């Protein structure tokens, strides 16, 4: 899909970033941005996962974060965990898969910015309530 770079859209300004871009240096360019599009030129090129987490967890970006390019069903659980909340995918069945993706894995090990409680946190809660 083709998204023109830095064109204002309805919700406000957007950024379309190459996956080699160092998002920690965006600085002022992030101000007022409502949509950021990160690119997967190949689905096996995972750089945008790191960009997404840095944007969410380090740069404090709270707007829409869209995955574009080769975006397939089986990447959704990873993408959700890294902070993507919108997807440009033409794959058949994608919408159904997206609806199910959040519950595909009931447990997660890694703390990311997605707010899910990790296994270690659950274990700690469990132990502490058992001890109390």
């Amino acid at each position, binding site marked *: 899909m083709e998204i023109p770079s830095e064109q204002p859209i309805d919700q406000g300004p957007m950024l379309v970033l190459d996956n080699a871009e*160092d998002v920690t240096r965006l600085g002022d360019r992030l101000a007022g941005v409502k949509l950021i599009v990160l690119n997967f030129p190949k*689905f*096996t*090129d*995972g*750089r945008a*996962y*790191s960009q997404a*987490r840095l944007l969410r967890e*380090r740069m404090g970006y709270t707007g829409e974060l869209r995955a574009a390019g080769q975006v*397939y069903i*089986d*990447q959704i*659980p*990873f*993408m*959700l*965990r*890294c902070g993507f909340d919108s997807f440009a995918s033409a794959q*058949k*069945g994608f919408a159904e898969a997206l609806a199910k993706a959040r519950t*595909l*894995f*009931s*447990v*997660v*090990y*890694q*703390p*990311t910015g997605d707010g899910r409680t*990790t*296994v*270690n946190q*659950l*274990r*700690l809660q469990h*132990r502490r309530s058992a001890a109390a």
Partner: protein
Amino acid sequence: MPDTHFYRYDDYDRALVGERVAQFRDQVRRRLAGELTEEQFKPLRLTNGLYLQLHAYMLRIAIPYGTLSSRQLRQLAAIARKYDRGYGHFTTRQNLQLHWIRLEDAPDAIAMLAEVDMHSIQTSGNCVRNTTADHFAGAAIDEIEDPRVWCEIVRQWSTLHPEFSFLPRKFKIAITGSPNDRAAVRVHDIGLRLWKNACDEVGFEVIVGGGLGRTPMIGKTIREFLPKDELLAYLEATLRVYNRYGRRDNLFKARIKILVHEIGAERMREEVEAEYAAMRDSALKLSPETVEAIARQFAPPVLRPRRTRVPEVEAMKLENRAFALWLKSNVAPHRVPGHAIVTASLKPAGAPPGDASSAQMEGVADIADAWSHGEIRVSHEQNLVLPHVAIESLPEVYRALEKLGFAEANVGKITDIIACPGLDYCALANARSIPVAQRISNHFAELARQHDIGDLKIKISGCINACGHHHVGHIGILGVDKNGVELYQLSLGGDVDFGKTALGTILGPAVESDKVVEAVEAMVATYLGARRPGERFVDTYRRIGAQPFKERVYGNS
């Protein structure tokens, strides 16, 4: 459930592995229904351990930190019998490979793994692979701390890591808890070495960018001492730097070692430290409770000190020469007096290195139940280890292993060969590895001679990808293809012992397949003629250099 002395899944771990099986079952269904192209399916099956080889699919099963219960080993035997041809191949990375799996059966095979708290997740593909450890962990006399506690912490953290599932290339981590590294930490993408500093604190030395393959490199230390509770933050920082900056333009330059080589260890350290500075004291920091809860599960079996000199053992030593040799080569000291660590050699004369039939696996499981607290280890030398055997039981254990064909007294010797699957299975191979190993093994089968030759590690790879670790063999053998002819390049002087990790040097022109045994014989003869008392093959080589070996192998012309 029998007692185990290592980590057992809790309901969370079990839920995740179960859900992963369901996900994979659906992926296979979609592939078979044509909803997924092979290109789309490939990374999915790879990260479930399913690899397409020359003749069939291969399933690579993770054996985390090389530790197995007898129950798990029996289940592996059952899977091999049901879905394969009744045998499996233990690899240099503490995995088990089944080489004849049908795609349709793979989800069921993986479901059987989940029944015994095992999986094949991330045993292939460009992600964080099975974390390997010292196969003597928890029993070794020289151990500072059990590295498996940390391997398990890394296993959980790396499993389905959302950020690092599409790395530039595969990523291998190894951890050792002993000064005598038995996990080859300097030839891994990340090697971690537990050590005690002057303040009596234990932490990690972090070594990055080692690896074999077509560009062998020895890892560089980027952190002398990392507090243990910061391990995951530091790993995440390192992986993030790699994910962002590792090369993706060229498959052969995509490993982290190339990044470290290109930007330099110093710059790598700066990048990782900067990222780490932003991550330390985050949710990744390990709470003492979390670490203790895992460490508790690795509590060793309660072993009471026993007799160290046992008359029956001494008597058998005098009567049975093979047993006496076996005690020397296959039995290592245990930290509890009166106990020993026994290595079952999966390299009987003339056999393919690392292969075990289902019946043999079950036999080893029985031995472990009877004499080793139900525990088995897989070594990166492709042998099985019984970690907790009482010295007084050694005669019985020896006889039982003998019945299985696993009592060859050759651990660390010239026939304890590491070989990759090579052209018999592997689509990437230039040449066969296993038949070459078998010929060398047959030629040097005589045990007394092997013990006279002493420690000598031969490692064979069927192509430059170096799965047989030929670069670090005292003698390395690499299959090359010259106009359709399988030739073998010989190298000398590699080593993986800690502190002296070294890469071998190519000896001269590659030789034909039927000349390999002769060449090895010539190298051995050179050593035997020149050695000084106490010198191993590789020591003599270091002292006298390659020239005498060269002359003997290729003649003076």
